[in-house]
């Protein structure tokens, strides 16, 4: 069953990821990204991380991507006026070269991780990935990072308000 679901889902995620960087209008990119995130939520469910899957939908697809859509609407970036691949001739070669390097790195990574020896998941308890389990870990072993994260979010909120309010001139 897992095999039957995982491979189509993974293919879908990769396709949608490619869609983000290939499509010429930002709206289509954003939609592909949303679809990719939903697919990844499915992958998380396959790995028993139910809470994280729902968080992925609420936080990424539900909040972050709505912000993206909001900005796209606000700036009214509908038209594909940007000529995607050839807008800056002096840098294109460098970019493409770096892109090839990245693909080479992917090949190398694939070679390395194909030697990983973990073929089947560990036997996990029933409450694996539930709110209780993740929450217990979060509030026992990771209290300090959690508090730091809250301060980070507060700082980001204040920063966003200040940036959006003042006109830079």
């Amino acid at each position: 069953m897992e095999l039957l679901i995982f491979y189509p889902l993974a293919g879908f995620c990769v396709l949608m990821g490619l869609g983000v960087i290939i499509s010429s209008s930002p709206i289509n990119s954003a939609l592909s990204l949303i679809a990719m995130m939903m697919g990844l939520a499915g992958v998380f469910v396959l790995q028993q991380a139910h809470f994280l899957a729902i968080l992925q939908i609420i936080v990424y697809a539900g909040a972050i991507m709505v912000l993206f859509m909001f900005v796209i609407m606000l700036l009214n970036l509908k038209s594909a006026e940007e000529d995607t691949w050839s807008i800056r001739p002096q840098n294109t070669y460098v970019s493409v070269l770096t892109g090839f390097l990245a693909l080479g790195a992917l090949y190398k990574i694939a070679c390395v991780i194909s030697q990983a020896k973990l073929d089947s998941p560990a036997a996990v308890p029933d409450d694996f990935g539930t709110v209780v389990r993740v929450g217990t870990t979060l509030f026992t072993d990771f209290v300090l990072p959690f508090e730091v994260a809250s301060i980070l979010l507060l700082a980001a909120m204040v920063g966003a308000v200040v940036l959006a309010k003042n006109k830079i001139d």
Partner: protein
Amino acid sequence: MIDGIFQFIDENTYLLLGIIKAVVIASALLGVVPLLVWLERRLMGRFQVRLGPNRVGPYGLGQPISDSIKLLFKESIIQNSADKFLFHLAPVVVVFTAIVSFAVIPMTGPFELFGEKMGLWASNINSGILFVFAISGMGIYGMVLAGLSSNNKYSLMGGLRSSAQMISYELTLGLAALCVIVHTGSLNLVDMVERQNSWPNALNLLNPPLMIAFVLFFIAGIAETNRAPFDLPEAEQELVAGFHTEYTGMKFAMFFMGEYINMVTMSALITLMFLGGWNTYILPDWAIIGFVAFAFKVSFLLCVFIWLRSTFPRIRYDRLMTFGWKFLLPIAIVNLFLEAAIRVI
């Protein structure tokens, strides 16, 4: 051949049962929509001292059917400047998310049927309430896409307003729900109802911090479902019809369906979280009685939704935002602290 089919059924009972449940619940939900439209029009008529639809069928009950036939046969107009794909996608997203988010709503307690333990829900997942929030959060995209793809300034304004409004009120909604979660100690909707089944803590509504949470949740729920007095995304007087200005025929009807199904889901959530779900406290707890009690509570809340619509004038947009961020949200946070403090003590 026949044996093969039986074997298949035996092996995949769970899957088949799930599919049947999903189909039944989805079609029941779609069947409720015309009734709800009828109810709304009749009640609105009474509130405004007129009769409402009463020509087609007894009490005008045939009116929604004839309306939907009319909408089905209308020409579907798409203007040239629209983005075709997104234009078609938007109503689909609205209806799809509305139906899917109802999947985890339990409608009565677990019961036995043919020796098999069952419940009247499509699925009873561990973090049910989060699932509802996650999927109904996806519903925003339907409105945003409709606003973007129509290529019309009124639609765009409607889309912008709806996304801003729904993000803002989702916070209050979540914090009010968090009070109930803290009170129950579980994210599961069935657990939430079963927590309320005996007298000392029956009806979450009667618990002081949860009373405030109920009011907050109700207000935020109205804003989330884009109902009057918070129907800014489709304010007729300002934006023609908001994000669905350019839609005609069946696609327009789909936006309506989405809105009404969201209303039902929201009422069901309020019933489960605050009004004791299928508990009647007096009558014997049979599954049938539980379902009737649940349906009664939900339809009462739906009537309140309609009542509010015909009573209050629409709020101004900047006031809506100020109300959400500077009034509801602080109260929700303080209320959550209060509830947590009471739980600790």
